[in-house]
């Protein structure tokens, strides 16, 4: 456990920042929370709207089991208390994007109670830089539709595609103390959601967004008055909101003012927050239990099924990569930070072990290094993500196997990989076709060494005079003469013999 030392230096001394996040995560499900309508992103306006979503007269909500299941699995993934009895409440307010005139949510009895998420502040030293952030609760609720103000000069249009889509509201405790912690929490939460498969975590598509609660206080004092900045849609913006909002509050307080409890909006273009509405004109939501829905009761079999369906979670995976596979802390953290990367890596590992007839541990390091440097480098260059990679885990494993069994050198492997990226060909065929097999033909290598030594008699003299660093030069020249195809070990040996 670590204590944050993040402080804002004010005129009156140091200030501590207190942060809590309410994250809205769209539940991955083909259907909405209380209707059978589809939930695909980017569909034509009002094409994914059922009679229930449009709140036609007499329409009734029926809970979608899959959405409930995903919320329970998410709760289990953060080791939270799962409430076997929960209930839906109506949050009443009028807005054109809210067809029922109320949002069905869970105020009084949420489905998931207290849990926790461990964040790592220094990925090179995960065990010593871990901080536990409490999660107060997770409840499920309906999303609203969307107003479009740019379609007509004097009218607003309503798109109800999102109306009724299931959201999880994941409410943290006010346990974060710096922008970095807030960012790490949100990233980690997203990682967990993606592992569990309960939310795709695509913040740019709005499937995940955060309300950022910020207050400041002098260290050791009680909590200050907080503001809530709504709908912040990236990790970077969350950190920016914390930074801006905390220093704004410090300025207000140090100027003798008071922080107003209010809802604020973040303006990414200006990098600042501004007031949206204060508590005075806050809605009275008139929450009450939704009489159209019975309390949600979960039985043991359902909970067990949810538990069984959970994958290995990121923290456990990271530890396993370090301890069982022998990866560095940093590599383990990087490979497990994202469910897709971990899946890709594990496919690479499995395939590598199979082809080389070795254990996964024996092929892990080379696989991790290749993925994180070679493959990531290439994808960066190509502007592609891992799931768009032209080279799959199977092809990658073939390439690595050729290096491991000495068929090609690491240098040649880079060339082969380039050809694979360009042509989509597979490593064994490319090596065969282009004659890139590494040679261990000692005769040819010794001849090449002899020529290199003869051509560089001055350097040989220097070497013999004690400049041993020149050894690498002779090896390099020999490799060059052999067009990189010589077995480096044989070359080393031949150079040593030639110089002795």
């Amino acid at each position: 456990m670590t204590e944050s030392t993040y402080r804002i230096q004010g005129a009156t001394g140091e200030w501590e920042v207190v942060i809590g996040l309410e994250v809205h995560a769209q539940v991955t499900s083909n259907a909405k929370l209380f209707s059978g309508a589809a939930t695909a992103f980017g569909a034509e306006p009002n094409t994914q709207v059922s009679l229930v979503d449009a709140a036609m007269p007499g329409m009734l909500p029926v809970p979608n089991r899959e959405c409930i299941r995903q919320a329970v699995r998410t709760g289990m993934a953060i080791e939270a208390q799962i409430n076997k009895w929960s209930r839906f409440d109506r949050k009443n307010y009028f807005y054109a994007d809210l067809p029922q005139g109320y949002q069905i949510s869970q105020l009084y009895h949420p489905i998931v109670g207290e849990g926790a998420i461990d964040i790592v502040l220094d990925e090179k030293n995960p065990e010593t830089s871990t901080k536990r952030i409490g999660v107060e609760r997770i409840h499920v609720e309906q999303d609203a539709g969307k107003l479009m103000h740019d379609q007509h000069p004097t009218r607003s249009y309503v798109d109800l595609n999102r109306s009724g889509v299931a959201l999880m509201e994941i409410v943290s405790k006010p346990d974060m103390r710096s922008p970095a912690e807030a960012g790490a929490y949100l990233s980690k939460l997203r990682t967990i959601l993606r592992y569990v498969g309960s939310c795709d975590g695509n913040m740019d598509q709005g499937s995940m967004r955060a309300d950022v609660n910020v207050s400041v206080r002098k260290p050791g004092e009680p909590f200050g008055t907080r503001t809530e900045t709504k709908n912040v849609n990236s990790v970077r913006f969350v950190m920016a909101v914390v930074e801006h909002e905390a220093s704004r509050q410090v300025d207000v307080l140090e100027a003798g003012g008071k922080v107003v409890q209010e809802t604020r909006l973040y303006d990414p273009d200006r990098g600042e927050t501004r007031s949206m509405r204060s508590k005075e004109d806050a809605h009275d939501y008139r929450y009450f239990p939704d009489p159209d829905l019975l309390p949600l009761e979960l039985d043991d079999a359902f909970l067990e099924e949810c538990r069984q369906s959970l994958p290995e979670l990121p923290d456990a995976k990271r530890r396993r990569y370090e301890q069982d596979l022998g990866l560095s802390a940093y590599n383990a953290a990087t490979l497990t930070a994202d469910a897709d990367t971990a899946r890709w890596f594990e496919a690479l590992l499995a395939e590598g072990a199979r082809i080389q007839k070795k254990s996964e541990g024996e092929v892990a390091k080379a696989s991790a290094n290749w993925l994180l440097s070679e493959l990531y480098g290439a994808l960066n260059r190509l502007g592609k993500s891992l799931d768009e990679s032209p080279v799959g885990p199977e092809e990658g494993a073939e390439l690595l196997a050729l290096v491991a069994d000495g068929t090609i050198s690491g240098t040649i492997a880079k060339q082969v990989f380039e050809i694979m990226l360009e042509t989509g060909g597979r490593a064994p065929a490319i090596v065969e076709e282009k004659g890139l097999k590494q040679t261990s033909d000692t005769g040819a290598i010794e001849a090449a060494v002899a020529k290199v030594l003869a051509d560089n008699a001055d350097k040989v003299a220097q070497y013999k005079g004690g400049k041993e660093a020149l050894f690498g030069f002779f090896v390099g020249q020999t490799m060059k003469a052999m067009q990189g195809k010589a077995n480096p070990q044989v070359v080393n040996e031949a150079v040593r013999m030639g110089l002795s």
Partner: protein
Amino acid sequence: MGELTDLTVAEIRDGFRAGDFSAREVAEGFNANVAAAKALNAFIVETPEKALAAADAADKARAAGEPLGALSGVPIGMKDLFCTEGTQTTAASHMLEGFVPTYESTVSGKLWSAGAGMLGKLNLDQFAMGSSNETSYFGNVISPWRRNDGGNAALAPGGSSGGSSSAISARLCPAATGTDTGGSIRQPAAFTGISGIKPTYGRCSRWGIVAFASSLDQAGPMARTVRDNAILLEVMSGFDPRDSTSLDLPVPQWEANLSSDLKGKTVGIPKEYRPDGLNAEISAMWDRGIEWLKDAGAQVVEVSLPHTKYALPTYYIIAPAEASSNLARYDGVRYGQRDLPDGAGLQDMYAATRAAGFGPEVKRRIMIGTYVLSAGFYDAYYTQAQKVRALIARDFELAFEKCDLLLTPTAPSAAFALGEKQADPLAMYLNDVFTVPASLAGLPAMAVPGGLDSAGLPIGLQVIGKALDEQTVLNASLAIEERAGFTARPDKWW
């Protein structure tokens, strides 16, 4: 055989099957009666063509020897709270005037599937809020009954299912659907000398019924006989996965198990239902009812439902609270009424639309409901009301340890004249005093006529049963029906 329109549902069904008459003849007879009864204002929309189409389909099926539905050949009225595909559905409000659903409510759909035909959409109190039909945007329904005092005062048909009660007692339809939130089937049935049953909450799907108070709303049939009610209720009931509060239970064969033999049954008489000042004729009718049930073989015991006096205030917190939220969807954005004054913004549109779209009683209940749910009052009103509701339900549970059913009056008086109670909402709310407790407890309850009072108006009795025990409710009602021999009908003046 007299007029086809004097037949009961069972008689129409059986006579049609036997070939005594065609379904078309029946439909034409009722269509003619409907067309001739504009003075009653029982229908908001008449659909004679739908009644004929169903009748022709029934006749064709019968001629072809195809299997017939439980209601083949029977035309009925549909309370205009049930959404009907392609036919305007208004809940008797200006708000939904012109609204034509693209979908059919579960209950109405079941009735059509069983072969019933629709004579039209029946008038009601606006959004089912009222006890006299005076809150309908389309004008109040008039009861076909008149006092025998020579005056021609127009009487209330009861509410909210007043179109249904008026139409059935005037022989405009042999049966109709009703909905009951606090007595909206039973009180109008009592006012017009017909019977009607509110089944156990959850028996009938609420899907496609314009919602008033979700935890109380329940559909049920209204007809002239207990048997007819059993026939319709069997068709209307059943699990609906589209309604989370629907009961996933098989539908009993209520008609086949009808029996007026009450040997072995114990009838509870709740003493709190006989307050000081109870109308003497209502009280006398109740005593007669007790004798009838004894005559049918039942034991009679006095029971206590100590929280009865809190039922009305509890109901008038819970029902408006739910209504205030349920009616929020009528905002002018997507369907129905929209009032958009020049230069209006969203809030102005809401205000103008809802001011014009809702009548005074609906507004009153929305305001009461909004108030009792608001911050600072929620615990004092809504939470408290929910606790009392649980106590009222508990009262019934304890009473049912000593008896199998309860007998009470249905309404505290016979039908009152239109306008008589309109000025005083509280006096109007008191009409529900005997019906509301069973609604709060979700229990099956039936109104059955017992006779006429000294003014020549029908008064009736209410039978309340244990949850899911509609059979006992129907059987006891049948025992009363047989002994009451209620054959009175209003003289035709319309």
